[in-house]
């Protein structure tokens, strides 16, 4: 287990804030980010003057969301600040944890705000490099490579589109209990199978709907968090791996390098898959859920379809997954809302979707076919 996750300076989440999700017309992305910061500070019982670090992230393919813009808007002069180009919750969390461990700051607020739906940002673009070659072939939108990945998996292991459908069905059952979720009407497997196919075999529920929203976290030291308003949530492990060479890596559609994230994650936290109470998987597409379940060792390689179809990830199942509804049902927030939900589960604040006795959560996220990151969060001081 890493020394980073022990002692008085252990990175610890003291606050979480989430704005309304969906459509926030008339609000800029930075304004939404500051609204989330305000909520996170209030949650932690802190004032703006208590913040000495700021980590922001840009909106997709834009220059909106920099630390300079957000600090100016919020009137902050933090000791330390940084901006990530693609700040999925985990990547921002890891940077913040490093800054605290290095003593650059004591209390960092990390945030993401987007108005990508109201601003009609184009998402039908190629992902993962070689855009000219992908676009001219028609391999546009993340649905294309996700479908290729699923069909390869199906060829190798016999995974069916009905099994895939259970990812969305199970997450919708969780979302139905989450007031923050955009999609709360139950979806049956028959509903799913009767929907038109968009990119074979993917259907509408297999893909994130583009939405507006904001989220923020407050990260501080374990010592400081003890004296704040809420139950401290400790970072107990983290790991990353890139595959920046993209589609020239063998089997890159299947993202086998996620197994390296998993291996280092378990080593850094000193736990394994059976120890996890609630699992969060950033789900730009439902296919990502199948891949992560396998590479992180929650089921065998090739067994994720049956694992999901057997109901393991549903309410009452053996491994609650994406109890917020995930991006497929809750909102498209680059994994930030998965972190927020994990924190609320660990604090016992998850209402009717609360997983009894949740003490350890794992968050798995990825930047399409290029980067993976994962974190272990816990309320257990000794972990």
């Amino acid at each position, binding site marked *: 287990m890493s020394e980073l996750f022990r002692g008085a300076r252990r990175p610890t989440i003291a606050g979480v804030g989430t704005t309304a999700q969906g459509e926030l017309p008339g609000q800029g992305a930075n304004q939404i980010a500051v609204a989330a910061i305000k909520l996170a500070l209030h949650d932690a019982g802190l004032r703006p003057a208590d913040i000495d670090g700021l980590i922001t992230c840009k909106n997709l393919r834009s220059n909106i969301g920099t630390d300079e813009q957000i600090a100016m808007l919020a009137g902050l002069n933090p000791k330390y600040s940084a901006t990530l180009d693609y700040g999925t919750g985990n990547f921002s969390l890891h940077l913040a944890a490093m800054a605290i461990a290095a003593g650059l700051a004591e209390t960092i607020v990390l945030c993401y705000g987007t108005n990508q739906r109201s601003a009609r940002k184009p998402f*039908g673009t190629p992902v993962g490099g070689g855009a000219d070659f992908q676009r001219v072939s028609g391999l546009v*939108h993340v649905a294309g490579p996700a479908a290729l990945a699923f069909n390869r998996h199906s060829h190798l292991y016999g995974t069916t589109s009905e099994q895939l459908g259970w990812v969305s069905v199970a997450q919708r059952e969780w979302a139905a209990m989450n007031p923050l979720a955009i999609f709360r009407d139950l979806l049956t497997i028959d509903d799913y199978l009767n929907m038109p196919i968009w*990119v074979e075999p993917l259907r509408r529920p297999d893909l994130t709907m583009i939405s507006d929203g904001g989220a923020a976290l407050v990260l501080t030291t374990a010592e400081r968090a003890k004296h704040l308003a809420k139950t401290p949530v400790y970072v107990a492990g983290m790991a990353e791996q890139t595959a920046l060479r993209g589609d020239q890596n063998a089997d890159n559609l299947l993202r086998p390098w996620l197994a390296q994230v998993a291996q280092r994650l378990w080593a850094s936290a000193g736990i394994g898959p059976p120890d996890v109470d609630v699992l969060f998987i950033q789900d730009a597409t439902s296919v990502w859920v199948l891949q992560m379940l396998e590479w992180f060792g929650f089921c065998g390689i090739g067994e994720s379809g049956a694992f999901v179809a057997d109901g393991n990830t549903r309410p009452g199942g053996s491994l609650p997954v994406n109890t917020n509804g995930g991006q497929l049902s809750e909102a498209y927030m680059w994994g930030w809302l998965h972190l927020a939900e994990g924190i609320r589960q660990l604090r016992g604040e998850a209402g009717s979707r609360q997983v009894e006795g949740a003490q350890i959560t794992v968050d798995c996220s990825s930047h399409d076919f290029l980067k993976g990151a994962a974190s272990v969060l816990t309320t257990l001081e000794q972990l």
Partner: protein
Amino acid sequence: MSHPGGLPLPDLSDPINAPHWEGLNHGRLLVQRCLECGRARWRPAEICPTCWTPGGEWIDFPARGQLYSATVYRRAMAPGFKDHVPYAVGLVELAEEIRMVGRLTSTEPPPVGTTMTGAFLHVSADFTLLAWRPVAE
């Protein structure tokens, strides 16, 4: 097989990719081979990603490989593809660890593992699309 127009065309003037696009117009698949380490590379680039030697020579590469996976777009997922759906896309594994995504000529993709060969579809006077079909077809 002809190809419907309206495709979002690549930047044919980009000097890095231009020889490749020009090769397709003549029914040739051109890729770069490093003059230092001898590795063929895809996609075109200023330097060899293996030994970082600048440049490289353009060589004729066999437009032949195994279908790794395929899908069919039934809905246009980006502007410019409305007149194209349904269409199929696949990933083909060529020799020397080169992997290419490309349009398939049929909207009923052959099984994974099928040996595919290149089909050069003339889209316009200055652009030819490399698509893939089973060798037996």
